């Protein structure tokens, strides 16, 4: 069978989404099922690891079964099973890894270990297989903020990353402080629609320095400002905070693309669903003459189609993984020098 025909079942349980998907040939998504636990965690204002692990354990088989049914496939048609082995919450990861390895063993097909960060990079290729190298990807989520240069399939260079909070984490913390609820990204995005982004000049940390990020100072500035000006409009604070984050993200992504001579720029991760970031990102790409790629919103957040896709590339490059593979909560992106 040619690689283009290979059907991979992807499984993702690294945080608070239980997901399974069937993808043919790395890019043809036959099904993609995501069961979000957001309601289970909302009252705690963040993901509670033990609650997430319990929910994954209940959902993993029904979600997998639905992915097969929606793809119109029987288990015997699956050619390999790929699962996220890290980074993420250890208890959550272990549910998906255990189920995936057991499915691979029982169906007698290869198991493929997938790095969650690498999968986010491949989310771009799923929807735009025409992307060319070198490609710079801005990966922004609740757990990560990084700029990666993809020089080829499986060849990455980490250009910069956050020194403290991830961008999504800053959204969650500021939203909680402003009483806008959880998750913070959509809440601030919505509130900012009726605010003035220039009302308050929040600091743009490390704007002129390199490609690393820092968001904890911004979060503190928001808290201090609101305490000092209790009468301020929440919408103005949300809009000004969002503008500061997006300004830094877009400026550094452009700088990264210029430094490595990238032909294309893509964004990924949950924060890539932010309206202002999407608008400014596309504007910047047009100005700089770069091929810009914006994933659909469903591909920004955690899903298993990107796991199956990354698994397909991983399998072609390195073959299958051992059934003795465990989970690694601190897994890094393996980079070239």
């Amino acid at each position, binding site marked *: 069978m040619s690689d283009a025909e290979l059907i991979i079942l992807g499984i993702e349980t690294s945080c608070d989404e239980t997901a399974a998907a069937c993808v043919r040939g790395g890019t043809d998504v036959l099904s993609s099922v995501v069961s979000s636990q957001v309601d289970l965690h909302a009252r705690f204002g963040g993901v509670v690891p033990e*609650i997430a692990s319990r929910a994954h354990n*209940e959902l993993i088989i029904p979600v997998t079964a639905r992915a097969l049914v929606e793809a119109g496939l029987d288990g015997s048609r699956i050619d390999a099973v790929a699962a996220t082995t890290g980074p993420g919450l*250890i208890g959550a990861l272990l549910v998906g890894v*255990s189920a995936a390895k057991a499915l691979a063993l029982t169906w007698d097909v290869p198991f493929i270990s997938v790095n969650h960060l690498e999968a986010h990079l491949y989310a771009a290729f799923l929807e735009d297989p025409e992307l060319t190298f070198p490609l710079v990807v801005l990966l922004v989520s609740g757990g990560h903020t990084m700029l990666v240069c993809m020089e080829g399939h499986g060849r990455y260079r980490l250009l910069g990353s956050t020194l403290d909070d991830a961008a999504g984490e800053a959204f969650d913390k500021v939203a909680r402080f402003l009483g806008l609820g959880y998750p913070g990204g959509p809440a601030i995005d919505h509130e900012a629609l009726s605010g003035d982004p220039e009302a308050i000049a929040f600091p743009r940390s490390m704007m002129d320095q390199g490609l690393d990020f820092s968001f904890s100072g911004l979060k503190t500035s928001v808290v201090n400002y609101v305490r000092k000006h209790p009468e301020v409009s929440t919408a103005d604070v949300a809009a000004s905070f969002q503008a500061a984050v997006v300004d830094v993200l877009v400026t550094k992504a452009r700088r990264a693309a210029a430094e490595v001579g990238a032909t294309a720029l893509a964004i990924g991760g949950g924060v890539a669903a932010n309206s202002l970031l999407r608008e400014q990102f596309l504007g910047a790409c047009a100005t700089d003459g770069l091929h810009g790629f914006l994933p659909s919103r469903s591909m920004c957040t955690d899903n298993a189609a990107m796991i199956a896709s990354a698994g397909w590339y991983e399998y072609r490059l390195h073959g299958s993984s051992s059934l003795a593979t465990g*989970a690694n909560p601190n897994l890094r992106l393996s980079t070239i020098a």
Partner: protein
Amino acid sequence: MLILGIETATVQAGCAIGGHEGVLASAHSAKGKRHAENLTPAIAFICEQAQIELSEIGLVAVDIGPGLFTGLRVGVATAKAVAFALRVPMIGVSSLDLLAFPVRFTSRLIVAAIDARRNELYYALYRQVPGGVQRISEPTVGSADDLASELLALSEEVLLVGDGAHRYREAFDGLTKVEIVDQGNSFPSAASLVQLAHARALREDFQQIDSIQPMYLRRPDAEINWATRDSAP
């Protein structure tokens, strides 16, 4: 009917294959909490040893706890995935039943106790009945001192079994009627799981995959803290 048994409720993880001829092959390890790494290769290994194809398995049995949460979920997720892929039914058995079963040849009261960490135990009381044991109390979580007081009040000869009995041994020191079973029997075994599941399979006491859930006995800490916060004045 061939049964695959999977057991990962304590620091030990194991699996076994068997049926009406008894246990044909088993494997277990109790070092390094490598449940997720070891379990799938161990299943492949016992199939090879017993010269059985996984596709010949007609039932998947699993230890549903109580026990250590993360380890337990590795076993339950693995067992469910195998049953789903093979389209076969499941049987869930409590870890405490698995501890009591091998030491059943006694007229004494049997108490199975698993280390629940944080100075607590998961435990239940059993009596021998023809062919096995009968649980006479609901599995519960409590301190070793709570259990010791309970046993003192019963004033009965007791056989105490499980890693929890060893971990909190000093709590039972003064109880002359209580004997602690040696370390060799202090973990639930996958072999016992296959035997107990076989007896239930003969009665066609099967379960659907979705009805198999770990027996946690404790709520997540965040929920406990939340509940406490709500009830605070």
